[in-house]
């Protein structure tokens, strides 16, 4: 490996880490506030801002970022305005702003490409991101914006948490809820600006949503969730950057997004407590336990019907009384020491009696009910 390549990869990996941390951290708030799709809108809406920045100053990171931030802010205001002046559902406002801003970006992009010639080719890289073209100046700018966002979050942590979980309560406390919501939208736009170089406008939304969704199923408190989402974002970002640097022709954005979504999928399936597989296993275990208790109760009823609490009942007799096969449950109950297998001399078949533990268990369940 040449030193130059190492240097590039280092910059790319660092940039991916900044992107992942920022996206995960700020995406958490968007997901909690059910504003995930606003992130999608702001990301797509950044395109005309990027073109404007390019027209003003060419390929230079500060004007590009400023343009994207302004366009994002304008898009957020437009969503609010459409919601305020029409009776259209909020969903429609999002769709209109997203598609029209993006279309404006497409128009400006075609203009830039017509007047700018070869130099403008780099601009379309912002659609899906192009990590390899990242410069040290880009990395510095990303770090500054990401760091600024982190500082803002730390400064207003309490207020942000209150607004995320219970905005009416926050308002009742006298917090400036509108201003905090505006701040959160600004933070979202900042996260998007950080990701444009790496992931591009079309897929940036995934970097906000996927790490946050993944983190949410592992933990239930805000601070760990934000931290974990940032970690997931870093893993996806760095992993994607390294992978796409290694293979020719792989755009960074899609790889990063697929890794982030993969983390989210695995988390949704396997996270202890809330994961889908986990819940499935727990439900089956609970169902088996309940069925065992019901068989135990049937055994008690059979014995009672014979006027003898220690009446040894044959397997088939219990099954007939229960209405379902009971062999598996009886063996399980035997293993737990709740029933005992006994021999009933003239007959060869297996017979069962309740143990004192079994009776105690039934009594306990009965009292609870």
């Amino acid at each position, binding site marked *: 490996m040449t030193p130059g390549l190492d240097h590039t990869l280092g910059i790319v990996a660092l940039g991916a880490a900044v992107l992942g941390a920022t996206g995960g951290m700020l995406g958490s708030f968007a*997901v909690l506030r*059910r*504003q*995930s*799709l606003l*992130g*999608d809108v702001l990301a*797509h809406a950044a395109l005309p801002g990027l073109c404007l920045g390019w027209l003003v100053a060419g390929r230079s990171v500060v004007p590009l970022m400023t343009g994207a931030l302004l366009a994002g802010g304008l898009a957020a205001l437009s969503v609010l305005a*459409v919601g305020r*002046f*029409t*009776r*259209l*559902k*909020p*969903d*429609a406002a*999002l*769709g*209109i702003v*997203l*598609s*029209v801003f*993006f*279309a*404006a*970006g*497409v*128009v400006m*992009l*075609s*203009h830039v490409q*017509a007047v700018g010639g070869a130099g403008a080719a780099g601009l*379309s890289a912002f*659609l*899906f991101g192009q990590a390899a073209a990242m410069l040290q100046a880009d990395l510095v700018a990303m770090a500054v914006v990401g760091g600024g966002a982190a500082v803002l979050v730390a400064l207003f942590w309490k207020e942000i948490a209150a607004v995320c979980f219970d905005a009416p309560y926050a308002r009742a406390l006298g917090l400036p809820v509108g201003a905090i919501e505006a701040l959160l939208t600004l933070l979202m736009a900042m996260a998007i600006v950080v990701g444009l170089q790496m992931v591009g406008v*079309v*897929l940036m*939304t*995934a970097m*906000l*949503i*996927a790490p*946050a*969704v993944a983190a*949410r*199923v592992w933990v239930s408190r805000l601070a760990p969730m934000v931290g974990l989402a940032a970690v997931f974002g870093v893993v996806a970002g760095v992993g994607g950057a390294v992978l796409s640097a290694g293979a020719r*022709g*792989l*755009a960074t*954005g*899609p*790889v990063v*997004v*697929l890794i982030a*979504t993969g983390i*989210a999928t695995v988390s*949704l399936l396997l996270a202890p407590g*809330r994961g*889908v597989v986990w819940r499935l296993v727990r439900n089956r275990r609970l169902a088996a336990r309940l069925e065992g208790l019901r068989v135990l109760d049937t055994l008690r009823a059979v014995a009672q019907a014979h006027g003898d609490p220690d009446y040894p009942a044959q397997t088939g007799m219990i099954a007939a009384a229960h209405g379902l096969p009971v062999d598996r449950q009886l063996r399980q109950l035997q293993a737990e020491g709740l029933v005992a297998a006994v021999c009933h001399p003239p007959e060869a078949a297996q017979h069962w009696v309740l143990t004192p533990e079994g009776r105690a268990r039934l009594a306990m369940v009965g009292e609870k009910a």
Partner: protein
Amino acid sequence: MLAEAHVAILLTGALVGVAAAPLGLFLVLRGTAMLTDAVSHSIVLGIVIVWLLTGATSGPVQMLGAALAGVATVAVTGALQRSGLVRSDAAIGLAFPALFAAGVLLINLNARDVHLDVDSVLLGEIGFVWLDTMRIAGVEVPVSVVTLAVVAVINMAFVAAFWKELTLGSFDPALAAALGLAPGLLHQGLLVLTSVTAVASFDAVGAILFIAFAIVPSATALFLTDRPARALGLAVIVAGLAAGVGQWLAFRLDVSIGGMMAVTAGGLFVMALGLAPRRGVLARLMRRRAEAADQQARTLVAHLFTHEHGPEAATECSGAALSDHLRWPPDVAARVVLHGLDRGLIERHGEVLALTGKGRAVAQAIFDPLGHGQSGGAPGSISASSAKAP
């Protein structure tokens, strides 16, 4: 003539909007407009997979593939929501970028074939639709126009056949479900057709601009009218207008045609928002100003009426008193007086303002809205008459 570039482009652009309008209408009404976003992104994966398997970039197989991809998106989104772990917005936002990313990656990996490239997936190329033609009844017709026309007819037929069910399902899903009208199934049908329409529109406008063609005309129409049938007609008109004006602008400015059509649709939406006769921002602003002016004129006649035969009539019924007693800044007071003079409510006798017959009638109506007090009575009579009222 249909194969001529300008006409072919215009027809294609308009037909994308017309084909999507009936679907967009109900998606906007139901509040699921962003599913268009999800579906149009994720069909890219379906298109790429079908292309890799069969080599076809259009045609019935592609439609099927896209419909499946659209259904898969909706199914994944629904499953995520039902799991209770992810809310609806995050479910949409989680599902489609992943499918889209997978599609883009597959294109990347097979980039030697120039037939599908990332830029055209995203943006389409409506400028080239006239190159690909077929012969129908001896006339050269662009393939995209034929496909889109067929899709438009299918979509229109679908909403016409299920008009009642779709309308009820949009406004009151619970009632529709209780009546056995299967609103969920119809919604799925809408989304399948949206996927098919997106594929048919794909070559022309790409995955993302399609959202503008699908949502914006319908949203504009729904802003202007409350009746779904009228809105559908309006949406078709807006779509056609956007295509025509957009194309003209694009040629003049030498920019992306599809993009300009979508921007024009957005412009029409903003115009409707601003200029609509009753609901427009401008109309509402003017109405509010007219109401404020009316209220001030009523205050003025009430003030004059109260004092006109009183001992302080000379000082109270003057322009200066309006500023002092009603706390109107002088310019406001002057405007209100002018307004009152214009409407014939008051007249000027030197420095003193006096009510005209019309102005006195207005004042009486204010103090005695039910009309059973003594006519021309002093203001004290209001309390008397209201005290008398049972």
